């Protein structure tokens, strides 16, 4: 789907701890995602899934532990430079409503990648084409459906040629009929070899697309493994209870 895949790297989260005051949100999380693999993180709300994603690109700094890209710790890197290597897609899209779709995608290309206007537009249009929205370049985000907005957000992240992609409940805010299109784009990206961490409530997606499924509860990964193992042969009682409720 995109040449970004050739540059994807492995991701390792090691014993990450984080507390907001007395509230220990992450209590030693480990997660290993080989280069080009997709890890889905499932679990009840409040289990720390979204916070975990934010410690990976250091929107939130972990108190303890380590995050490695391609085997090298990124905690000493410039966070802004790190975030250009790690794309992120949010539940609420977080598109910039005061800019056209095209400008949403070109902004970082021009300001951070220092491409000139024509180059940036070429890259952006190609990326919008890949998510099926070439015709919407001049629209404002508010004129698009939620599903289209989320695909723009994916294009915006991919335009920077990230080495890892993080998805934070990317379809949770969408009307049911729009979920499929976004999941399709994500599945394509996974198949093309992007290293991905996907926090999701879409168990069907996790089952079909993930290489690894990690079940988080109360700030730790309780159980992780290939989808068949997690969905068919869950060991931990809390995971079994969770699956009973969502499946």
């Amino acid at each position, binding site marked *: 789907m995109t040449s970004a895949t050739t540059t994807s790297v492995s991701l390792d989260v090691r014993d990450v701890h984080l507390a907001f005051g007395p509230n220990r949100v992450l209590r030693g999380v480990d997660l290993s995602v080989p280069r080009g693999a997709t890890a889905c993180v499932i679990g009840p709300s409040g289990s720390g899934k979204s916070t975990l994603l934010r410690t990976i690109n250091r929107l939130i700094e972990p108190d303890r532990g380590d995050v490695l890209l391609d085997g090298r710790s990124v905690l000493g890197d410039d966070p802004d430079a790190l*975030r250009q290597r790690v794309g992120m897609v949010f539940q609420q899209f*977080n*598109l910039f*409503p*005061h800019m056209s779709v095209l400008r949403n995608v070109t*902004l*970082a290309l021009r300001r*951070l990648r220092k491409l000139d206007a024509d180059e940036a537009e070429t890259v952006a249009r190609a990326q919008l084409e890949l998510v099926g929205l070439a015709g919407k370049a001049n629209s404002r985000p508010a*004129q698009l459906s939620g599903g289209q907005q989320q695909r723009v957000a994916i294009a915006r992240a991919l335009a920077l040629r990230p080495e890892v992609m993080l998805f934070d409940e990317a379809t949770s805010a969408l009307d049911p009929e729009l979920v499929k299109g976004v999941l399709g784009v994500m599945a394509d990206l996974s198949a093309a070899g992007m290293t991905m961490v996907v926090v999701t409530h879409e168990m069907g997606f996790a089952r079909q697309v993930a290489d690894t499924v990690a079940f988080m509860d109360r700030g730790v990964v309780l159980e992780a493994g290939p989808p068949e193992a997690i969905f068919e042969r869950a060991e931990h009682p809390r995971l079994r209870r969770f699956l009973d409720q969502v499946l």
Partner: protein
Amino acid sequence: MDPLSTLWETFFDWDAMREALPEMLTVGLPNTLILAVSAALLGSVLGLLLAVAGISRSRWLRWPARVYTDVFRGLPAAATILLIGVGLAPLGMQVWGPDPYPLGILALSLIAAAYIGEIFRSGIQSVEAAQLEGARALGFSWADAMRLVIIPQGIRRVLPAWVNQLIALIKDSSLVYFLGLVASQRELFRIGQDYAATTGNESALLLAGLCYLALTVPLTHVVNWIDRRLRNGRPATASTEEDDDDTASYAATEGDRR
């Protein structure tokens, strides 16, 4: 003469108006515009700096901004203009001579900045935290995220309140007459007042009032138009034109969605 026609004559003496009109348009209007436009520009730039200082994480920026705003919002405009215009006059004398205009503009700007700063700050703070997170996640620094994403959205949200302040500024510009203007520096109000004083008829003052309305009323509508345009983007096709109302209300409620 019956009281009613006396009243009519006092305010609507066409000859008095016709007499005042040329000077009103060639001297008064340009001077009012010079005062108001310069103070609007300077006041908005200062206001933006105050707004950013006001939301800074550093108390060394936050506190001075707070104190400044309280002082310049709390003083009567006339007092501020006199304090600065007269108080700094010796200093001004050395820099640009006896012209009271620069100090008048400075005083008007400092007052406007206090209000505009608060308007901009409330707009900037109304932008969802998710917007900052979205920009930071792309790799923008805090400063770039504020400059490119947060501040433009925040200011667009408060354009109508900003225009209120510009209207107040246009009206307050009449107060610089305290500083003693020579004939060629008189703005709309002063010219109207001078005519009224010499003729004992208020019609010239009423004419000055109409000139103010001719500035302030269109300003409101122009900015409302800009406001709509910014919300919806350029009308690209006929179909987006039809959707205008929907998208406008959608954009207006956008802040509540989260």
